[in-house]
C-alpha cells in the first residue's frame, strides 16, 4: 500500500514538474524576471536575444509554434514589439494569450513611461505613442512589474500562487539590497553628460542622474548620418559629453567614430540579460552595466 502511494506520489510529482507553466517572454529581461519569481514552476521561452533589436524582429514560424503552446506571454508593450508580436499572438490560434486575457502581460503598463510624445507625427521618427519602451534599465521599475507578474502567475497557476508570492518576496528583498549598493557605487555618474546611440538608456540615465546630451540617431529609428554625427561632434565644444553609449545589438560604427574624434570612450552596455557574458542574470546585468560605466569615467 505504501509502495503504491509512493508510486502515485512520484507520478504526481513528475507530472507537476512537466506541467510547469509555459511562459513566452518577448525579451530576455522578462524571461529572467519570470525565472526569478517562478523558479522551477515555470518553463520560459525567450523570443529574442540581447543581440537582436526588439523593434525589428520578424514573426518567424518558430515563434508561432512557441506561442501556440504558451500559457502566458510576457511582453514589454508600449509598441516595442508592435512589428511582430500582434501577428504572432493572433496567428497562434491560442485564445489564452490574446490581449485582454490573463495570459497576456505587458510590463509597461505597470511603470511610469518617460518620453511620452505630445505630437504623434512620424516626421519625429518612429515615435512610440505610449512613451519610451526601454523600461528595464531603471531597476526600481522591476518592483512593480515583478509584483504584478507574481500576481498574474498566481492567477494562471493557483496551486503555486503562494510560491510565486514567495519568489517575488525573495527577489524584492535581494533587489532592494542590490539597488542600495548600485546607487552607492554609481554616485560618481550623477550629472555625467553622455551621448547615446538610440533612446535605449533613458531610464538608466534617469535613475543614475546622467545627462543625455545627444542621440546618434537623428530621429528614433533613423540611422545615424555623417551630417548629424558631425553636428554632434561640433557640439562637444560647448556641451562636452564624457562617453558614448550603445547596446549590444546596435552597430558600433557611429559610436566608435564619434568617440575617436572626440577622444571619449565608446561604451557598449549589455542593455538586457545576455548582452555581455557577465550579464547572465538581472543582478549581473546591472553589475556589469555599472562596471562598464564607471570604467568609462576613469
Amino acid at each position, binding site marked *: 500500500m505504501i509502495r503504491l502511494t509512493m508510486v502515485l506520489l512520484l507520478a504526481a510529482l513528475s507530472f507537476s514538474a512537466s506541467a510547469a507553466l509555459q511562459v513566452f517572454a518577448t525579451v530576455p529581461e522578462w524571461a529572467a524576471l519570470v525565472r526569478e519569481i517562478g523558479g522551477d514552476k515555470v518553463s520560459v521561452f525567450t523570443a529574442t536575444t540581447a543581440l537582436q533589436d526588439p523593434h525589428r524582429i520578424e514573426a518567424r514560424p518558430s515563434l508561432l509554434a512557441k506561442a501556440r503552446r504558451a500559457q502566458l506571454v510576457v511582453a514589454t508593450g508600449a509598441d516595442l514589439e508592435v512589428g511582430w508580436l500582434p501577428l504572432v499572438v493572433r496567428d497562434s490560434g491560442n485564445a489564452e494569450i490574446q490581449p485582454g486575457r490573463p495570459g497576456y502581460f505587458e510590463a509597461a*503598463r505597470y511603470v511610469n513611461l518617460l518620453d511620452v510624445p505630445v505630437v504623434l507625427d512620424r516626421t519625429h521618427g518612429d515615435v512610440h*505613442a505610449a512613451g519610451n519602451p526601454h523600461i528595464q534599465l531603471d531597476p526600481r521599475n522591476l518592483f512593480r512589474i515583478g509584483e504584478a507578474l507574481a500576481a498574474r502567475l498566481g492567477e494562471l497557476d493557483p496551486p503555486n500562487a503562494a510560491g510565486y508570492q514567495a519568489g517575488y518576496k525573495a527577489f524584492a528583498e535581494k533587489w532592494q539590497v542590490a539597488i542600495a549598493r548600485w546607487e552607492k557605487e554609481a554616485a560618481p555618474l550623477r550629472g555625467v553628460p553622455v551621448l547615446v546611440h538610440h533612446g535605449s538608456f533613458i531610464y538608466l540615465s534617469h535613475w543614475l542622474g546622467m545627462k543625455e546630451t545627444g542621440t546618434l540617431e537623428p530621429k528614433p529609428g533613423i540611422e545615424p548620418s555623417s551630417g548629424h554625427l558631425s553636428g554632434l561632434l561640433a557640439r562637444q565644444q560647448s556641451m562636452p559629453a564624457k562617453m558614448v553609449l550603445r547596446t549590444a545589438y546596435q552597430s558600433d560604427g557611429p559610436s566608435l567614430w564619434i568617440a575617436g574624434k572626440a577622444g571619449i570612450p565608446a561604451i557598449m552596455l549589455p542593455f538586457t540579460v545576455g548582452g555581455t557574458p557577465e550579464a547572465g542574470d538581472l543582478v549581473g546585468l546591472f553589475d556589469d552595466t555599472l562596471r562598464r560605466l564607471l570604467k568609462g569615467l576613469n
Partner: protein
Amino acid sequence: MLHKPFAVAALLAASCGAQAASDADLAAIRSQIDEMKKSYEQRIAALEQKLSQAEAAGKAPATSSAAAAPSDSGQRTTLASSAAAFNPEVSLILQGQYAQMKNVPDRTITGFWPAGGHDHDGGKGVSTRGFSLNHTELIFSAGIDPYWRGQAIFAVQDESVEVEEAWFQSLAIGHGVGLKGGRYRSGIGYLNEQHPHQWDFANAPLMYNALFGQEASFREDGLQLKWLAPTPIFVEFGAEVGRGANFPGTDSNKNGAGAWAAYVHVGDDLGVSNSWRAGLSYLNTSSGNREAEFVDINGLQAQGLFNGDTSTWLADFVWKWAPDGNPKYQNFKFQSEYFVRKDKGDLTCTDENGVGNACATPVTADYDTRQSGWYAQGVYQFTPNWRAGVRYDQLDSGRQNLGANAANLVVEDYKPKRATAMVDYSWSEFSRVRLQYAQDKAMAGITDNQWIVQYIMSLGAHGAHKF
C-alpha cells in the same frame, strides 16, 4: 493634486488594517514594513520622474511634461497604446512608378491562357509606360470584440474603389484553430498573401501572373480554417472554400462552393541566424465559359470558352538569414516557388466577331493541359538602408491538348523567361524607393528591356508583416 492625499490615506488605512488583522505576528509586521519601504521607493521614483520631466519640459517641447499619472494603489496604469490611439488602426500605402519598356498593347504570356484578372484599370498596370500611380491602399483593422478581429483593405484608383480584402478573424477559438471569413487573399503558396507593397520587386513573378492574372494573387470570397499543430516546430494546416470567381475560376450563379484549397506549411529556425518555411498547396477551381482570345490556323482571331476544372499545385520555400538573428543591419532572404496547373474539361471554339475563322460553326472538343513554372529570388540587405536582389522566372507551356480543336486553333509551345535585378533604398521602415531592371522574354519573339523606378510609402499605424 487632490488624488494624492487620498492615495496616502488609502495606503495608511490599508496597511493599518492589515496590521490589525495579523495581530502581533512579527514576520507579518516585517513584511508590512518592507511593503511600505517598497511603496515609498516607488513613490519617490515617481516623484523623481515627475521632477525630471518637469525639468525636461522646457528643453524638449516634443515630450509631455506629465507622463501617465502614477497610480499609487499599485494597480495597473492604463495608457494609450498606439493601437488604441488609432482605433481602428488606419494606414495608407502610397505607391507609384516610372516605367520604361516596349510598347506592347496586349501583353500576355505566350503559351498561357490570358488571365483577364481584374483589369478595372482599363489595361493599365503591368504594361503602363511612363509615370503612373499604382493602387493606393487604405487599410483599416481593429479588434471587434474579445472574439473577433476585422480588417478591410480598399484599393483606390481614379474612379474606382475596390474592396481588396474585407474579413473577420477569430481570436478566441483556441486549440490552434483560426477561422477567417469574408474576402481575403488565399493562404496558398508564399507570395499569394502578400500585397504589392510587401513585394521585394516592383512586379510579381511571372508565375503569379500566369496563375492568377495581373493582380498576381488568388483572392477568395469564402471561409478559411487553419490549424496550428501543438508541435515544437511550426506545422500549420489550412483549408478554404469559397466562391472561386477569380481566374483560373469563373463566377457562377449557384449554391455551394466554386473553389476549394488545402495547404500545409512547416517552418523552424536553424540556430539563431537562420529560419525557414516550406509549404505545399492545392487549389481547385471550376470554370463555366471562361473566355479567351485565340488565333486560328489561318491566323484569324477566334474565341475559346473553357468549361471544366482546374487544379493547381504550388510548392514554396523561404529561407532567411541574419547575423545573430538581428535583421536590422544585414539580412538575406531566399525565396522560390514552383507550380503545376492542369485544366481538364472541354473548349468551345467560336467566331464571335464573324471574321470567318475555322470555328464559324462552334466546335466543342476535349481540352486538357498541364503547365508549370517557377521562380527563385534572393534579396540581400547590406546596410540598414540598402538592399539589392535578383530574380529569375521561367515557365513551361507544357502539354496543351486541344482534341478536335487542334485542327482549328493554334497554341504555341514556349518557355517564357525573365531575369530581374533591383536595388532599393529605405529612409526608414516607412519609405522606400526602388530601381529595377528586367530582361523580359514572356512573349515569344520579343525581348523587352524594362526599367522601373518605384516608390512605396506607408502612413499611419505600424503594421506587422508576415514572415
